């Protein structure tokens, strides 16, 4: 037997290249757990090289045109295999999401990686998840016989774990039309820009004059899944915005999270930095919510 972690793509698999959504769901119905869909491959191939995943069937989504692109039908609908680069280029008005996609990783990965792939990988450190949580995004899951729509919040169950069944495919991410006078921001702290975050946070605020009408705060790399700071959000709504309030809410959000210490940062560091970046994200979001 070969030694493990050779970083060579050793696991043997059958490769499928369907061209329609229906074919994908048929393959998933047939193979279930032994199959894995592949979009950009920037996570899956690494996991296979590290022998953390060994699917016997790999289903490429890159020939399914229906999964690609961005359209506006009341809500903003993003096909699951739309690349991070494309989202960064096409959706600059969604500040938090565009900022997350801009600092996502290297240029090479930005062109290859997809939004659906980033969500399905379900990393607690996903850059795209916190902004999408602040936009109340929903995901459409399709199987051969059914389709259901879930709030993104209920999609993440734990590191690498999602609410998706083995026969289901994440087909689309939908963002409801933004309320007027809304602004958002995303801030990521990492060792170098292209690295995985030590902590990241997104905020969205909707204003009515100087009053906060609606608020969302979400964080990454601070819990087993990307999370919202619901208590901090509640304490913002109805208040008059001020830098002092942003400071207080930042500290409060940091108390709501339960980060761990790992190779990238300690628990204490994450908690302290979370307070600062939530504050700064709120300040920026407020400025943009004109």
């Amino acid at each position, binding site marked *: 037997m070969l030694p493990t972690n050779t970083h060579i793509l050793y696991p043997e698999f059958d490769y499928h290249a369907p061209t329609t959504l229906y074919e994908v769901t048929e393959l998933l119905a047939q193979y279930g757990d032994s199959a894995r869909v592949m979009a950009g*491959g920037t996570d899956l191939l690494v996991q296979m*090289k590290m022998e953390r995943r060994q699917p016997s069937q790999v289903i490429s989504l890159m020939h399914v045109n229906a999964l690609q692109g961005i359209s506006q039908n009341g809500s903003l609908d993003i096909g699951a295999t739309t690349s991070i680069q494309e989202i960064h280029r096409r959706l600059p008005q969604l500040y938090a999401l565009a900022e997350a996609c801009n600092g996502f990783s290297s240029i090479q990965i930005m062109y290859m990686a997809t939004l659906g792939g980033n969500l399905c990988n379900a990393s607690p450190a996903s850059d795209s998840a916190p902004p999408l949580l602040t936009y109340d995004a929903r995901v459409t899951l399709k199987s051969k016989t059914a389709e259901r729509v879930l709030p993104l919040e209920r999609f993440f169950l734990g590191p690498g774990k999602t609410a998706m069944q083995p026969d289901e495919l994440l087909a689309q991410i939908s963002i409801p039309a933004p309320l007027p006078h809304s602004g958002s921001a995303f801030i990521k702290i990492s060792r*170098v820009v292209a690295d995985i975050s030590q902590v990241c946070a997104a905020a969205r605020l909707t204003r009515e004059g100087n009053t906060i009408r609606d608020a969302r705060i979400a964080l990454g790399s601070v819990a087993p899944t990307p999370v919202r700071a619901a208590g901090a959000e509640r304490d913002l709504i109805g208040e008059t915005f001020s830098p002092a309030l942003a400071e207080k809410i930042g500290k409060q959000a940091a108390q709501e999270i339960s980060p761990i210490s790992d190779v990238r940062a300690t628990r204490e560091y994450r908690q302290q930095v979370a307070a600062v970046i939530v504050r700064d994200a709120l300040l920026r979001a407020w400025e943009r919510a004109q």
Partner: protein
Amino acid sequence: MNPKLVTLSVNHRTHHVALNPNTTLLSALRDLGYTDVKSGCEKGDCGACTVLVNGIAVNACLQLAWLAEGQDILTVAGLGSSDQPHPLQTAFADFGAAQCGFCTPGMIMSAKALLDERPQPTEAEMRKALSGNLCRCTGYARIFEAIEHAAKQLNVDSRG
């Protein structure tokens, strides 16, 4: 798992090769003799395997070769020859932008993708474009100087 006959177009040459689905574009290219494409981390972190696929810089270690069928692949060896090197290649040599040289093919391809899109990039754009290419010898100052010089050279050339 059955091999398939795949047609790869590399540096304007056409290759027909039987490949298993678990062959990455990187190992297919190196097996074909394109050893100018380097295998570093195999995880998309270091950028040593950067090639252009239809003009876009990708990590060949994270692309399956089957997916590259029919695409236009360019490696650093296809950029210029010893007699007629590409201005980026000349500049990297002239500015001492290579020490051990292992990262250089990837660096040059990322720089090529940048200059194709942005003929006069700002320093921030250069840094962003090369953020996925790691160099452990020189630091990056000479690399950026070389790219800046090559950009000027290319702009002069295109004006004739």
